[in-house]
């Protein structure tokens, strides 16, 4: 039964896309979690909807619209966080809502609803085109290479930003690079689980992994494995019970999250 699902080409694509996105999210997600950028990532993901709306209105591919829009949003959020730390969360919340509002209005203004908007909101892993899988694979390779090259600097920034600056690591540059990479990752992962659910896919595997490891690189590796496991089991459940794959993946991850959380609380006692 499990393997029979793979007879369908869309299922094979979904599995491939799932594995690639899980690796991407495992690496970027680890950096997001240890740098406490989960809320900002949520903001970036949601503001991407503004880009989707504008793209539909102007007729460019929605993925590019979303990528450009979330890139801009991520850089603004990054700059605000550095300038006005005290109220950065408020500004992120506002950009989050404004981005979505822009998206809704531009979709309203567009004639006809020929695009599956639900796909962007809740994901459509079964309909991910081949080219996008290729794009994700290339981007993931770039991310892996980037992390390898700047690993010790990334570690210094994530562990102790202030010390990183003093010792001469290019903390500012890395911070904005991380945010831009997050923006692109979010848009690519959005195709799979949707922009509303993407935050879970990015934050849950690293959160669970953190309990088992004592280095950032191991945390990344384990996050990738957890992500692949959650994605494939979610996909399988959705195939068996004919339910939404995006939501299934998130519920599998969420279940694991709560189990790990309860175990952690238990241990503390």
């Amino acid at each position: 039964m499990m393997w029979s699902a793979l007879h369908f080409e869309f299922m094979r694509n979904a599995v491939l896309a799932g594995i690639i996105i899980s690796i991407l999210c495992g690496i970027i997600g680890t950096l997001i979690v240890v740098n406490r950028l989960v809320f900002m990532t949520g903001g970036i993901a949601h503001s991407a909807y503004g880009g989707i709306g504008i793209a539909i209105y102007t007729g460019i591919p929605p993925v590019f619209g979303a990528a450009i829009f979330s890139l801009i949003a991520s850089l603004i959020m990054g700059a605000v966080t550095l300038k006005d730390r005290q109220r950065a969360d408020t500004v992120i919340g506002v950009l989050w809502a404004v981005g979505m509002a822009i998206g809704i209005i531009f979709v309203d203004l567009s004639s006809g609803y020929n695009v599956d908007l639900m796909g962007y909101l809740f994901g459509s892993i079964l309909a991910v085109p081949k080219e996008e899988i290729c794009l994700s694979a290339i981007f993931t390779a770039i991310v892996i290479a980037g992390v390898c090259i700047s690993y010790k600097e990334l570690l210094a920034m994530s562990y102790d930003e202030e010390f990183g600056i003093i010792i001469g690591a290019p903390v500012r540059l890395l911070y904005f690079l991380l945010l831009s990479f997050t923006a692109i990752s979010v848009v690519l992962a959005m195709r799979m689980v949707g922009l509303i659910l993407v935050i879970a896919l990015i934050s849950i595997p690293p959160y669970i992994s953190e309990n088992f490891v004592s280095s950032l690189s191991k945390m990344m590796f384990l996050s990738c494995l957890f992500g692949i496991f959650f994605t494939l089991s979610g996909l399988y459940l959705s195939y068996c019970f004919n339910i939404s794959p995006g939501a299934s993946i998130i519920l599998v991850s969420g279940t694991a999250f709560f189990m790990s959380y309860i175990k952690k609380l238990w241990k503390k006692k």
Partner: protein
Amino acid sequence: MSSNVIEVRNLWFSYEKEPVLEDVTFSVKKGDFLAIIGPNGGGKSTLLKLILGLLKPERGEIKVLGKPPQKVRHKIGYLPQYSFSNTSFPITVMDVALMGRLNRRGFGKRYTDEDRKKVEEILKRLGIWEYRNTHIGNLSGGQRQRVLIARALAVEPEILLLDEPTAGVDPEYETGICEILKELNKEMTIVLVTHDIGVISRYVKSIACVNRKLVFHEEGKITEEMIKMAYECPVDLITHGPVPHRVLPEHK
């Protein structure tokens, strides 16, 4: 003039409207062991951050090793203020200490055996070599503080800047850390910030007191002026506080 490793002249700084530091002038000689004392919120940590070039002075000038702080701060070993916040971060003692070697290896390069040797030497000296592969979250407060001191030393600094080195440390380890610093002072200039005039003031050579303004005492004596400036109620401090007798001037 050349023997001064830190020079601060007419320094003013404020976060909002109220000045945090007002017309601060002092210099630290090479080989000095300076304690900067003062109440919480008196501007001690701010002063350290200015010396590190993390904050920019509003007015006045800061020179470290004769240059602006941003140019030479990689030669400063810095111990940040103790915090519990980052204990779940997945990192080992060795990896934290190696961070002090970061600027010696270019972008895209790994730490070398030389770096590891140096860090090994430092960890052994601080008595935490056996914990090298331990997760930072599994250490006690005193051990973690030593790890961060090890990171500062891995820089092979000319100046050691310590923000509350004995905070979060069990009292029985406090003297240990002080002894280590005394040893280290033979090789480098040490400036530390502390909010209580505790065990540590027995080890220092000079004392500065910061409460918006700064009073400097080269011989390491806490003058009445300092206490009055720093604390509302000097009598209370003298009777209840753990002030070692030696540092207090005679009362007239």
